[in-house]
């Protein structure tokens, strides 16, 4: 594919992520932090996020499958997930976590299960998207192009 086309695709794709509410301005902040001195900052943080989240979601599933659910264990996990997702701008994961926490406070097991599914769904969605995004970026870099800077203001 032509480089310009690829760049346009990337731009559109990123834009769509914002429009769908998968990402928010925090992700742009993250992108701004990336510069020559630290060219892989975004992917670094995001992959860290993936690692952490995989672990946390695993832990959460285990905790919630217990016969007696210990909400004191569940809540910090959700809190952490919320913090890390908001840090990378994964807005919808964060929102789902907010709901999740409110169910934790109510000690509503059923609600928590539902929310876990929700969080997982959102997480896999954002993971999928971000991976696609990085793939597109890598393609552009590989073909010697610049990654177009995203505009602010969404």
């Amino acid at each position, binding site marked *: 594919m032509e480089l310009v086309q690829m760049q346009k695709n990337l731009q559109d794709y990123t834009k769509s992520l914002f429009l*769908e509410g998968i990402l928010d301005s925090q992700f742009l902040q993250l992108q701004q932090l990336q510069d020559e001195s630290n060219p892989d900052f975004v992917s670094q943080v995001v992959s860290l996020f993936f690692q952490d989240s995989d672990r946390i979601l695993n832990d959460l599933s285990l905790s919630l499958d217990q016969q007696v659910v210990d909400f004191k264990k569940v809540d910090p996990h959700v809190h952490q997930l919320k913090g*890390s997702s908001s*840090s990378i701008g994964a807005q919808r994961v964060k929102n789902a976590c907010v709901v999740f926490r409110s169910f934790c406070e109510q000690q509503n097991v059923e609600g928590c299960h539902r929310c876990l599914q929700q969080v997982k769904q959102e997480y896999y969605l954002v993971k999928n998207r971000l991976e696609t995004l990085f793939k597109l970026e890598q393609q552009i870099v590989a073909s010697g192009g610049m990654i177009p800077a995203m505009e*602010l203001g969404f």
Partner: protein
Amino acid sequence: MPMRCGVLRYDLHVFLVIVFGTIPIKIWRRTTKNITNNVTLSTEDLLSSLVSEIENIGKIIYPKTNLSTIGLARVIDSYLTNNDVTQFTEIQTQIAPMLFQAYTTIPQVSQVSYISRNGLLFSYITKLNTSFSVFANSSSGEDYTWYTQTVDQLTGRLNGNAKKSQRYTDWFQDVQGNCTTAFVGTSLGGEDNENLFHRVVSLNSKKGAVSLGFPVKTFTGVLNRLNLHGGELYMWNKDGTLLVRQGYSLNASFFFSNGSTCFGKESKFQAFCSVLEVSGVPLSYTLVFPNKDRGLSIENASMYLLIVTMFLGLCWPLGFVVFMLQAARRDMHMRVTLINQMEATQQAERKSMNKSQAFASASHDIRGSLAGITGLIDLCREEVRPGCELETSLDQVNACTKDLVALLNSVLDMSKVESGKMQLEEEEFNLAKLLEDVIDFFHPMAMKKGVDVVLDLHDGSVFKFSNVRGDRGKMKQILNNLVSNAVKFTVNGHISIRALAQKPSSNSTVFLVSDPKRNASMFSKCKGIPMEMRKSVFENYVQVRETAQGQQGTGLGLGIVQSLVRLMGGEIRIIDKAMGEKGTCFHFNVLLTTLECSVSDMKVRYDIEAGGDCISTPNLGLRITTLLGGGINIRNLSPRLNNFLGSSPKHDGSRVVLLLKDEERRRVTEKYIKSLEIKVTVVEKWEHLNHALERLFRFSPQSSMGRAECSLRSRELPLIGMDGKSQIPRMRSKSFSTVVLLMIDAKTGPFSELNDIVEQFRRGLHHGISCRVVWINAPPNACENERGDINCSKPLHGPRLNRVLKMLPEFGGNEPIETPSERESFINSARTGQKPIGNPEDEQGTSKPSDDENILNGKRVLVVDDDHIPSLVATRNLKKIGVSEVKQCNSGKEAVRLVSEWLTQREQQGSIDMLPFDYIFMDCQMPEMDGYEATREIRKVERKYGVHIPIIAVSGHDPCSKEARETIEAGMDAFLEKPLNQDQLCKVMRELESKI
């Protein structure tokens, strides 16, 4: 359970009935007893009182008859012992006067007589109220005769003729003997046989007897006057002669037989018998009372009473029972209804809850699926050949999914508002800018339909308070919704948005009224919202059918808008339009805090009115309106001078000539420029432009220059710039050349001709007058010339208009304010339909980093967070603004340890001048030891050494929330919202730096 209650209650009822029923019977018993007693008592009383009365009568009526008789007898006796009286003549002359004396003196006496032994008789008798004398002048023998002769009333002498009278011997023979008796007997006097009480006393000398008689009639008359109270009185003497019978109520028969008295009567009665002595005569009497009768009547009465009480005692409980039964039935009925209703309500609640849950999960699912679809579309797009039809279809599908997501978001917003989870996110923003952005966004869309969107900032009050703090996103959402509705439903005419700021009350608040006017056409093709639909328009899921035809939408928009407006402390309503005006005007106000120094911390209330405005203007080809000098001058000037501008010698300063297509825009722009005290000329049709320009500038303005300066210099413009950067400078006090600013909408006429007119005008200008042209919607590149003309394809209003006006010398601009690059972006943004220039974010993006780059140069910072992703981001952020060393640690305990270790180490070395870290960024919620506690610990340690490390709280909570306040209470110095944002970070750090 209710049944058992009912049974208990009936038991209680029966008990009550018995209790209340027995009470009247008891009362009845007591009363009847009392009555009977009273009756017996009163009968006894009556009897005894009657008896005593009769006795009294007997005693009183002839009290001293005996004594009088004896006295008379003694007198006569003593006379007779001294004189021998044997002859009747002697009696007549000697005894008779004494008898007459007694006859006249003794009261009530009706007969006084002397009877000698040998049968001579002389007596005075009262008969029919006249006195007579009855005498026998010869002793008893064969020719023994009684004579009756009238008597002289005064002397007692006989007069008239003596008549023979019948001789009564029934008691006379007895009296002739020597005896003293008393009896009832007939009168001596003759035919009428009147009964008298006779009192006879014989003389001691045995020569005769004296007798006095008293009438029985008087006595019976007294007795007859007695009230016997329904009883009867019988009185008789010992011979069995009935003297008195009084009262006939009983119809009793009375007779004597064998010396005893008998009463005959059918009914029972009570009798009282006694003897009464009247002037020495014993009389028997009997009082009879209807005893049995009385008892019967009392019984009857008590019987009636009993029946009544029984009725009362039994019937009202019966009635009561009936009533209670009815009440119970009603009660049961109501209970059943209530239970049914409750069940129905619960069911409805359950349903609604299930529905909203299903709704929420469904919308999440939908979102997921939509995300999937967009992802798939992207995948497809990668593989599709560019430019082919499939790609356009894919783009369309993509657009559709975006619409769906937006729809979903509004639905979710609605449920958020409903559940009260919606909260305001306060941030600083520029309201004027926001208004402009919104309108710019909708302008091209509206222009496509031939509808102009006009921003009317009215008196410019929005500029005064344009930097505000509030929820920008929601404000924008409100405006977007209203304006998009306006654009959607307006077929013809224009949409005007008027905004103004006001102080809501004396307590330092400011209102800003703004009004998107949503509107309609002058040609009555448009549809307003019908009156009756106005209320329901703000309800969810409601669309006005008449107007919604052919329009899409869920009808959620205005409901959300209303919720949002209320959330921001305002109210939204539809305003009535004047007669003849079409369209609908929405008016809303919100409260925002201003950030201007002069009015810092003030709340500003922004009223925004949306509505259509159709002003019918007189069909004039040219309308020249102007405003001289300033408000004060205007008042002093005569209207004549104002009238014709062209010839006015006072013409000076700069002038703006407007040639705009839309009438409303013309009006609004003119008004606004006028409010800045700049003269405006409005030209309505392009054909008139030439003529208007010629008339305006035929005369040289030079001559009046001096005066104009004075009038302008003496006043300051009431305009304060919209924000720090674009503030319009105060009017310069030194003289300046006149500038004519032409604002021409190229769509009003053929561009080339318009251009020619302008060029011609330019050439003909006097020296000292310069001319600038702002083309609106001119063809690209058509007016790029060296004169600094501007081509603007965006509507001129709000801040953009201000920038254009800054070219005027009054505001300090000799040069066009737009730099070429800006102009470029002006055009660019217009062309692509993206955000216009001058966006605060853009400006920050280009200008701030240079300032911020080194804000924390060389500082050392500790970042405490249990989660390493935010920690990493924070680190990166900090490095970006010049921090030389960032230490990360992942728990509160660790942080406390680091700080205290470092401090003790330093103390050992003898110097604690250098702090371990310049700043600590502390996450609030951490396992083991949270941020609050860690801060308190650190503060405790610090106190020993007398140092203070600024600690910045980092938390996912709102900056205005309770948690944020708690951080400050825990001893932290500042609060940052998570996730970290470079702008906020810089702002907070700058504040902290300035404090230090």
